[in-house]
């Protein structure tokens, strides 16, 4: 199966990414004019029928979320684009915003209309300085078109300051509010009590770009790709021992092996040329054995069956010479450094895991690690602590990966 380009603009696209011409070339002007003329319920109904799921990692049905925010009580509502892309091995939102910033913004404007928000925020990772400039200019393009501004929705960019945790949606709200980015307890969910204690629609960049292309075309076009369970395409970020690292757009259902091997995609494993393991979904992801890679396709049910998830779409490839214990130690250090410190399981748990990895105890203290990992998954406040042990636990479940250790 070839690489698809729908979220990413086609290679022949000639206009500047932030220009009015680009809006026209991508059909986004049409999408805006069409969507903004609809009743909010009609937009939400279309999004629901499209089957779009959140692309930030949790895969929550987008239409359901929009409907919740729309129905939530409150005269003031907000929409937020989460562009705080900080997951290891994940750089799809950056590429998307560089190549086609108007798409996600168009999705944001449509979302604001659908839920009744007058104000939107783009929260962007602090290190993405150039992307931020691009985004700001793209917002100006929409302002000139009248879609952004006092009569439409106001969009403000907020920049993160280097904390991974700020990408967690409620921590992100705290950051926008000028507070320490600690995740909040849920419920209440952002849909009823989010930014400034108001109902808030928060979506990943890629999700919003999906909305834009949906309205630039139609349901029939949109649903042409994908599987029974998951419609559309997914941006994946290939990195590590792979000949053609980069961001690729592939339909859901594409075999994992093909993503690694297809000449227009990964172009096969580099290094020793022999696959050792794949870490799917970033630091909080799951290690897959070569056998699992061979037998699975990129789709939630298929991966779910082996305890894995697409997450943000990060695919880190390791050849068979890599010591995975060293990789796990790196991941442990990442989480220990990025834990906000609010809750006990994450604050101390990430530290203890790191210490055990540094002293080479991965395979000697499996029951302690399982108990600790389970407690972190069960009892941490937010996704960071809940997923911090996942990669480690996935190795423990796959003793065949031990020979690398």
């Amino acid at each position, binding site marked *: 199966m070839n690489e698809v380009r729908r979220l990413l603009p086609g290679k022949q696209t000639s206009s500047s990414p932030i220009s009015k011409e680009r809006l026209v070339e991508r059909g986004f002007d049409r999408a805006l004019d069409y969507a903004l003329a609809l009743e909010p319920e009609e937009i939400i109904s279309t999004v629901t029928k499209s089957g779009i799921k959140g692309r930030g990692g949790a895969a929550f049905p987008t239409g359901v979320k929009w409907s919740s925010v729309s129905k939530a009580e409150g005269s003031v509502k907000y929409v937020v684009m989460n562009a705080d892309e900080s997951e290891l091995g994940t750089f799809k939102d950056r590429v998307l915003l560089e190549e086609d910033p108007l798409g996600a913004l168009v999705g944001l404007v449509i979302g604001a209309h659908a839920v009744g928000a007058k104000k939107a925020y783009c929260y962007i990772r602090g290190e993405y300085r150039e992307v931020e400039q691009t985004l700001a200019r793209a917002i100006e393009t929409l302002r000139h078109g009248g879609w952004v501004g006092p009569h439409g929705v106001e969009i403000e960019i907020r920049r993160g300051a280097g904390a991974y*945790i700020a990408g967690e949606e409620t921590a992100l709200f705290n950051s926008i509010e000028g507070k320490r980015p600690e995740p909040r307890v849920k419920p209440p969910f952002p849909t009823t009590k989010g930014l400034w204690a108001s109902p808030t629609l928060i979506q990943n960049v890629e999700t919003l770009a999906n909305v834009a292309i949906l309205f630039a075309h139609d349901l029939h076009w949109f649903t042409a790709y994908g599987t029974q369970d998951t419609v559309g395409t997914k941006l994946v970020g290939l990195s590590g021992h792979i000949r053609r690292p980069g961001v690729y757009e592939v339909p859901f259902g594409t075999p994992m092996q093909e993503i690694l091997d297809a000449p227009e995609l990964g172009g096969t494993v580099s290094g020793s040329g022999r696959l050792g393991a794949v870490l799917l979904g970033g630091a909080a992801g799951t290690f897959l054995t070569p056998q699992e890679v061979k037998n699975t396709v990129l789709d939630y049910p298929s991966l779910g069956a082996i305890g894995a998830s697409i997450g943000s779409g990060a695919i880190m490839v390791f050849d068979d010479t890599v010591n995975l214990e060293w990789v796990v130690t790196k991941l442990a250090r990442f989480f220990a450094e990025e834990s*906000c410190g609010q809750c006990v399981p994450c604050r101390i748990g990430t530290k203890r895991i790191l210490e055990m990895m540094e002293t080479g105890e991965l395979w000697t203290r499996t029951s302690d690690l399982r108990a*600790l990992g389970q407690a972190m998954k069960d009892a941490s406040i937010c996704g960071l602590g809940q997923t911090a042990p996942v990669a480690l636990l996935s190795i423990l479940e796959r003793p065949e990966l031990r020979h690398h250790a």
Partner: protein
Amino acid sequence: MENTVTLTIDGESVTVAQGTTLRAACEEVQHPVPTLCWHENLTAANACRACVVEVKGSRTLVASCSRIAEAGMEVQTASERVLNSRKVVAELLLSTSDASIAPDLQSLAAISSADAERFSGGNTWAQPVREDNNLYVRDLAKCILCYRCVEACGDDAQNTFAIAVAGRGFNAHIDAGFGRDLPESDCVYCGNCVAVCPTGALIGKREFDLRARGEWDEDKITTTPTVCSFCGVGCELDLHVMDNQIIKVTSPLDHPVTHGMLCVKGRFGYEFAQSEEPV
């Protein structure tokens, strides 16, 4: 009934008022869940996670201190996952902080059969005591980062906002701003942080000194309720007296005037009553 919800806790059906937390509901049916950071007069911080329970249909365990009971919920307070989390939380804290005068943490450890050694041997919070004034002492080696002090100093009572959490991960700690000594900070010494601290990490100087000298003797301490003699607010003071010396002042948590909170004069200003100045 309109203003109530019915749920099951450990298989037992219970009807509670709308807005009741799972923690309170569990208490009502006498299946109490242990807590550390929860405090009856403070906003639940949900930081310690000792109070997690299992709710059917929920992917993770939920903090019972802040989760509101909903109709039809099926709650388990002692499932395998709950017991594991509770125990690990206790073990992680014991591996990090000095629990020698932390009764709540000691009892959590006991009821969860925690093995204090399991995760020990790594970094701890051992650090020098900070004695930078003569009213209260910061012995942060005992801190479990329950956030109670931050809330008492902030929105929940004092509204001074002198302290907050600084740093992140294992290095997150309570700080008066840029690592300053208290006299250089915004602290007004109300001592409400001391009043709510469950571990003795924040402790009155007098108590700290007596304990350090081995002279603090619970059996010799009497507690007498009275009323503060400073302004006209009328705060109840509980005078803790040992050898005819007031050594600590607290206020009852259920008192309608104080809710357990005092100002610097009420909490620390008692010395005049026992000063040696002859009449």
